[in-house]
């Protein structure tokens, strides 16, 4: 009851004309930034910080604006994943797996509508979790130590073989390349440079967004160049401009399951939105992929990761607000913003500044509704994008990616890296190697290594620390169960197909 009355006061704050205006602006700008490859929530939020200072907004209004941009980016990231096969930001990468095939089959409107609704469900569940249980969840999350995070990453990597099913060996190869790339840079534990070839630009390692944009956007342009030499590419046919509501309703369980998985990943400060959308996809595939439709345009393969991604982004606000621990690059920027506005995030924030916390929570409810309303009518406009011939679209995509990547660190070196990854991505695609595991390896590999090293620093080199806590033991059992199930299913399918052949023969 007390929560409800606090939330009511929050709505009073959030419903001031200024805050509503900022909310609308933030949602719109965020969706755009998220949709443009290379530009994402980190740049969006960082660029808007000086603006909030310039206008002298109070902390609550500033946070409302920035969180609206953050949520907007998470909604927007999926648009280019679905329409162009180019993820707008890191967590949107899983959406390419089924979203783009759906678009190619003329289902773009459905894919956009499903992902929009899934984003809404995921983010709303996360905000409900935030308003009801934030302090309790934050206190629970601190019991996750480095060894437990390592076990979580082991679970993630054990399931990586299950995402793109063409050839498991190629999936593993791709993930290994990602893991190798994740070792580049200054070793955070000892400060020793690894594989940097004496270049200071490599000291911070491979920036995932640079690799992501290169691998997907630049390689897409290269593929197109090759195709135009052979035949003139046609625009993808659009089946319908309007989504079918039945198709959305059929993915309701996928959305709920994805939200649950994503939320847990978001609350853990060492996990984050990319892990959330990835685990949500794998979990959904494991439960629902009875007919082998995942990866070929299954609507549930769009619903689950999008719900997971948005639930994780909302969940990540819990450790940020109640512990002051950022779970992602964007929450780190939001945290710095709070500190410079003289707000001390941490255990006392909810007691000392209830206006800020509950005004923010209320505005997040409103941001979600705004984004849903903003996104559904735009589906018609976005699907028309599919009718643009690729020769007209791709130069614009190229320009946007170059601007976006340059804006991250003002470095020409990053542009060179992006082109390098574009060529790498092109070669791998020619070899039928999926690029998604590579990016996951790069995104998750660094954290997996750091947590292993931290665990080993704590135990002074004693490996038994890895199985010393109930959490890690539970995660290892889950991993073993997952692998056993996968092997059993593979063997069963193999026998089945052999039996079929025998009866046919």
């Amino acid at each position: 009851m007390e929560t409800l009355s606090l939330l009511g006061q929050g709505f009073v704050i959030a419903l001031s004309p200024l805050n509503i205006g900022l909310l609308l602006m933030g949602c719109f700008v965020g969706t755009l930034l998220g949709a443009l490859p290379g530009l994402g929530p980190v740049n969006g939020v960082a660029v808007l910080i000086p603006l909030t200072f310039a206008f002298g907004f109070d902390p609550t209004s500033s946070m409302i604006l920035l969180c609206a941009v953050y949520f907007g980016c998470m909604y927007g990231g999926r648009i280019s994943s679905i329409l162009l096969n180019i993820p707008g930001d890191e967590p949107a990468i899983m959406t390419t797996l089924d979203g783009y095939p759906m678009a190619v089959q003329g289902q773009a409107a459905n894919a956009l509508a499903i992902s929009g609704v899934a984003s809404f469900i995921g983010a709303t569940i996360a905000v409900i979790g935030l308003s009801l249980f934030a302090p309790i969840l934050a206190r629970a999350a601190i019991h996750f130590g480095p060894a437990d995070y390592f076990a979580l990453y082991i679970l993630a990597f054990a399931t990586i073989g299950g995402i793109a099913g063409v050839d498991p060996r190629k999936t593993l190869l791709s993930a290994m390349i990602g893991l190798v790339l994740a070792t580049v840079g200054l070793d955070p534990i000892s400060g020793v440079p690894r594989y940097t070839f004496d270049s200071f630009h490599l000291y911070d390692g491979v920036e995932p967004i640079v690799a992501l944009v290169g691998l997907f956007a630049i390689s897409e342009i290269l593929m197109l160049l090759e195709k135009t030499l052979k035949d003139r590419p046609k625009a993808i046919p659009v089946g319908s401009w309007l989504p079918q509501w039945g198709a959305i309703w059929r993915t309701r369980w996928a959305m709920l399951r994805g939200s649950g998985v994503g939320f847990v990943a978001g609350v853990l400060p060492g996990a984050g939105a990319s892990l959330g959308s990835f685990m949500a996809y794998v979990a959904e595939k494991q439960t629902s992929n009875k007919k082998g439709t995942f990866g070929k345009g299954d609507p549930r393969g769009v619903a689950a990761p999008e719900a997971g991604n948005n639930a994780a982004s909302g969940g990540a606000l819990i450790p940020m607000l109640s512990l002051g621990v950022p779970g992602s690059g964007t929450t780190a920027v939001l945290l710095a913003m709070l500190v410079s506005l003289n707000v001390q995030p941490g255990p006392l924030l909810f007691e000392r500044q209830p206006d800020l916390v509950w005004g923010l929570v209320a505005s997040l409810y409103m941001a979600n509704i705004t984004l849903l309303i903003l996104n559904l009518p735009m589906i018609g406009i976005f699907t028309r994008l599919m009718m643009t011939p690729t020769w007209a679209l791709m130069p614009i995509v190229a320009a946007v990616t170059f601007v976006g990547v340059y804006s991250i660190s003002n470095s020409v070196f990053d542009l060179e890296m992006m082109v390098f990854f574009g060529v790498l991505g092109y070669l791998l695609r020619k070899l039928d190697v999926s690029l998604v595991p590579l990016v996951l390896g790069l995104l998750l590999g660094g954290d997996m290594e750091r947590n292993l090293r931290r665990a080993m620093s704590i135990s002074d080199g004693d490996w038994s620390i890895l199985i010393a806590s109930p959490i890690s033991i539970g995660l290892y059992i889950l991993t073993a169960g997952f692998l056993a199930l996968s092997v059993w299913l593979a063997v069963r399918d193999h026998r089945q197909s052999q039996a079929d052949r025998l009866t046919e023969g």
Partner: protein
Amino acid sequence: MIFRMMTTAKIGAAMATAMTLTALPASATECIAPSNPGGGWDFTCRTIGRILTELDLVDGNVQVTNMPGGVGAVTFAMVASERPDDAELIVATSTVGITQIAQGRYPAPLDSMRYLAMLGADVGVIAVDDDSPIQSLEELNAAMLEDASAIVTAGSSGAGGWDHIRLLMVADAAGVDDLGAIRWVQFDGGTDAVTQMMGGQIDVVSTDLGEIAGFVESGDIRVLAALSDDPIPAFPDIPTAISQGIDVTGYNWRGLYTGGDVTDAEYAAWVEKLETLYNSEAWQTAATQSGLVPIWRGGEAFEAFVREQADVMEEISRDIGVIE
């Protein structure tokens, strides 16, 4: 056809938005934060940039550029090679940057820049969980003297970074011989380390007070010692290490440098502007609010201080085996 034009116009508009967002109105003065948005260097540039404009010490806005890489090394190399005489450029640095230089991790020596001033400092603290059996710095030191490898310590820097070195300086002053045996765990930030300590993973945290002040106020953690000369105004009850017989201070100062070929007149003008800024109400408030203790050292005196600190740091790093 109409659709196509609509789409193109829409994308054009989107691009224009992206461009204006990324290229904010340029002005003559630029402050480079050699890190991603959100860190201490970013705070230095954004706050100083804002106040310089507010006090009309510069024309127009100060453009803040984030140039992350190699804990400041990328920016250092860029300034040394491309903009050594650009008097409109200032770069944020701190004890962390000087530690990197002292350990030879930057591509150019300390002297390739001119150090303008320090405007404030974060105070290092040694903290334990409120349930910890260790009640005082004396008990911590006794425990380390008995068995240095029994204690798990952590902070926001890697081994050999400033958080680690500060802790070892305390242990060294207490007479612990086997400094290498003390276990050190790196986390991405002070709050990460503190929450892991609350979760029971580690025993002791050494880091800046500013970031973890919320946990001190809430009583979740107990600060055994502040590594400052005098008690911290916001936390007068926290005893200094010096008052407990351990003669160690560990500030993380925040300051600025400019290119090495900037003329004496331009250098002096910057120092004067920064001193005006330091004495302003706006800076004193902003610094205190973000947990810094305002401290001024500028011009020649600051350059001498930086050189001395780099020497001390190099010596300690060698003693504890971080460099050879």
